[in-house]
């Protein structure tokens, strides 16, 4: 009896499949009310609803797709209000099933996607967007989402999307993804092509997928398949090796740029006047706060320019911190030049004062920064190397700062004065260089550079009143190692410390890396107490 019924069912299904036009190849029409009910159910029911949505995106009729697309988005955004009679799409206040306007009864509950269901819904949403979004950029973004999980893409979705795609470039990308997804297809030629496609983007994940194929029966049976797998493995491994090397270099460079930014201002102040400025870290912090204030100001005055606050804040951050530096020099430090220990204590007091002043005025919480597009996310380059924009911003910023500082010190009369005073203060005074003014201006320059450091670091680190303390030790390490008062020394020391840190960290951990770097610096200074690049000539 049971057997007969299922046989009948099968026959019916086969008949339906044969007879139905391709657009209606689904075994049954979408149960709209049932789907909405599942969307409001427990985690298991929501998972089933997600799968139904993804399947609808691939194989549903046009009306069903148009109907279901907002549901996936609403579930992700928690904009679906479940009440006793079903659910309401909160955007527009429409009933989820009938799409007629109605208000929710009682207090609607917005179901939360579990971690397991979230990728299913995101995939469904992307699938709808790939086939239905009018904006090509939105379709390209959807394709990117699908690429993350090639194994979950519903069958035939990509074929249908490619058929309907009008943008030639995007169509090609879809085809590529479709070929990649054929890794476990039945056709050996399609599989070999898929292996080649996967190997084009080498990464550890790709390697895991390809090396799993070595256990496939086809690997033993089919020599062509075997050759393709071996070639792909070799190619991916090479890609990973290059990527890892680039990543280490990039990480080292990025850390070096941070160290350099923190240290360059100090190098000038310490090099010129021999003043150990312990408030340098707080000037960095103030630079970050000024950047934040510029952002808030733009938000109020010119919201259109908000994305560019990091650029617009450059002169402001520099001038404000430079002014603080000049004021500090004029009011406090110039009385203490003959007493280095006192100037150290005085700058420490200033550092505590600035920190607590900011704490009282702004509070201790982390400041909230807009993240403009040019410091968000990253691009995968090769292997597992991702080029992150916020780090790139810091590196570019450091390079620019270096170039400008170098030009200022080497190519301008002011720089000439600074160098003269650094080399021999008394002789410089004798030949008529106003050393007092040079001191003040140089202190301002060093402080202003600290302010720029704060600006460059704000997209990377949390900005709060204590942030400056993190940098002062590292900055001194760089300055002392580089040789007091030389820009080249600061650059080389920052690059060296950054790179060594990044090399040690994966081997022995971050804690050991800090200790080892410190030991290395101590050992080096035993050998060369002047640092890497000692200023030649007589000092004081």
């Amino acid at each position, binding site marked *: 009896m049971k057997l007969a019924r299922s046989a009948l069912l099968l026959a019916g299904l086969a008949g339906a499949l044969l007879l139905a036009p391709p657009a209606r190849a689904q075994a049954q029409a979408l149960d709209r009310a049932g789907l909405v009910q599942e969307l409001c159910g427990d*985690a298991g029911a929501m998972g089933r609803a997600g799968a139904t949505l993804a399947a609808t995106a691939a194989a549903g009729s046009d009306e069903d797709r148009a109907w279901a697309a907002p549901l996936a988005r609403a579930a992700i955004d*928690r904009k679906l209000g479940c009440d006793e009679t079903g659910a309401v799409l909160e955007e527009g206040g429409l009933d989820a099933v009938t799409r007629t306007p109605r208000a929710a009864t009682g207090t609607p509950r917005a179901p*939360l*996607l*579990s*971690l*397991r269901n*979230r*990728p299913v819904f*995101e995939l469904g949403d992307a699938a709808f967007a790939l086939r239905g979004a009018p904006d090509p950029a939105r379709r390209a973004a959807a394709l990117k989402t699908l690429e*993350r999980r090639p194994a979950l893409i519903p069958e035939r979705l990509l074929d249908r999307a490619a058929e309907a795609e009008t943008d030639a470039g995007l169509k090609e990308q879809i085809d590529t993804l479709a070929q990649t997804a054929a890794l476990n297809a039945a056709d050996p030629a399609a599989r070999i092509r898929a292996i080649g496609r996967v190997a084009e983007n080498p*990464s*550890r*994940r790709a*390697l*895991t997928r390809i090396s*799993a194929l070595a256990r496939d029966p086809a690997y033993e049976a089919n020599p062509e398949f075997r050759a393709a797998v071996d070639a792909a493995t070799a190619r991916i491994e090479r890609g990973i090796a290059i990527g890892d090397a680039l*990543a280490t270099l990039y*990480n080292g460079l*990025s*850390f070096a740029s*941070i160290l350099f930014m923190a240290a360059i201002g100090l190098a000038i102040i310490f090099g010129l006047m021999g003043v150990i400025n312990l408030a340098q870290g707080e000037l960095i912090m103030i630079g970050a706060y000024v950047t934040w204030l510029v952002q808030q100001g733009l938000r109020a005055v010119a919201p259109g320019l908000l994305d560019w606050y990091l650029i617009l804040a450059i002169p402001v951050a520099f001038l404000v911190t430079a002014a603080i530096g000049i004021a500090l020099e004029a009011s406090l430090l110039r009385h203490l030049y003959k007493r280095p220990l006192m100037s150290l204590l005085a700058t420490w007091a200033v550092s505590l004062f600035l*920190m*607590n002043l900011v*704490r*009282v005025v702004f*509070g*201790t*919480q*982390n*400041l*909230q*920064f807009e*993240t403009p597009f040019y410091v*968000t*996310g*990253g691009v*995968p380059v090769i292997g*597992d190397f*991702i080029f*992150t*924009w*916020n*780090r790139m911003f810091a590196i570019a910023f450091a390079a620019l700062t270096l170039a400008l500082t170098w030009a200022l010190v080497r190519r301008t009369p002011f720089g000439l004065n600074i160098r003269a005073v650094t080399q021999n203060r008394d002789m410089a005074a004798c030949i008529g260089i106003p050393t007092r003014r040079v001191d003040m201006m140089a202190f301002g320059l060093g402080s202003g550079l600290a302010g720029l450091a704060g600006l460059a670091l704000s997209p*990377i*680190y*949390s*900005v*709060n*009143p*204590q*942030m400056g303390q*993190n940098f002062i030790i590292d900055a001194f390490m760089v300055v002392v190692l580089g040789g007091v008062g030389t820009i080249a020394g600061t650059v080389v020391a920052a690059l060296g410390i950054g790179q060594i840190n*990044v090399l040690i*960290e*994966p081997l022995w*951990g*971050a*804690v050991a890396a*800090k200790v080892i770097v410190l030991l290395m610096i101590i050992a080096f200074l035993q050998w060369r107490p002047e640092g890497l690049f000692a200023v030649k000539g007589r000092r004081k």
Partner: protein
Amino acid sequence: MVKFSRRSLLQASGLAAVGLASPLSAPAFLRGAQAQSGPVKLGCLFSSSGTMANLEGRLNYVVKMAAEEINAKGGVNGRTIDVLVSDPASDWPLYAQSAKQMLQQEKVSALFGCWTSVSRKTVLPVVEQENALLYYPLHFEGDENSKNVVYVNSPPASSVLPAVDYLMGEEGVSAKRFFMLGSDYVWPRTINKQLKGYWKSKGIPESAWKEEYVPFGFSNFQTLVNQIRAFADEGGGQPVVILTVVGNSIPDFMREFANQGILATDIPVLGLDMVEADLEGLDTAKLVGHLNCWAYLQNAKGPANEAFLNNWAGYVKANNVPFSGTVSIDPMVSAYDSVHLWAMAAAKAGSFDVPEVSKAFAGLTFDCPSGYKISMTGENNYVARGVFIGSVNDAQGFDILWQSKDTPKPVPFSPYG
């Protein structure tokens, strides 16, 4: 430079001698501490400066708020509560020093304080020696049971393990591989030791996890996030990150994690010390779905939570508190519970003497803002709390993904470590 002239020195020492010799002649505000009718003092040990300031600082105000609430109802045993605040400056030995000062000089009846376990461990010998009471409002590594500490928040068995179980289960993500990243001190190391023991007991091989530690205040997570990606891409099942870094390392880690393009659906992060306040400066749209686990989340349902949130918002506004009035985190609620639990015990005992108050712990219950009725037994100084698993949303908060049916009985000593 302050210079003591002989005259002023003599004056000062003379005053001090008079003060020491005749306590009865001391001015009224000094006598208050000893008098039976004056306010009873409570001490706070939360940093207002240093790396923990952003988190610990707000707890001072919550303790004050709870004390005000109790005072408004007539105080305890006929006396009002006076809250004293210190600043141990995120410097661990300073916590012990401040505790000693509060106990010996100010004669406080109970201490409320510490965030990191390392600070609790430094205060522990002080409170044991002085036979005082410390209410500790953080969830922690367990493996400690002093009669002088009230562990108001949960040990791992009733916070971390349910969350890890959830991740490993069908409803979660069937996690198979674990990257443990922590700050280098006792809490992360003990938690990770217990987790490893737990996984071993489940027959999970050692190759399925990796452990890394960073110094306090560490913020350059580029290389570590690279390592996490490499670990995840090795295959072998769903990877998760068990994050036990503390303080400002949390937002810095999450920012780098998102910037390298990793989403919660790729590698979820279970941030054991992550609270709403850590997300304050972040763009959370790319962090949606990462998890934390606490005994309270701001989105908890119920009138007790509504009342608490209203009170806090009102208190922040009225007293110009330098913290957000719209953010409420678990340790705040636990500190709030602490004051009430202490007041109830003192009222039950009819005394402020530590031995009497301790005896009154058994059978105390309190309607916590989390919606659970938290309770204490006479067995130990732990408090039974509910468990929440939160999921980061795009509004810098946590949605409740899962919560326990009741309050599991706290287990002080873990069988797994």
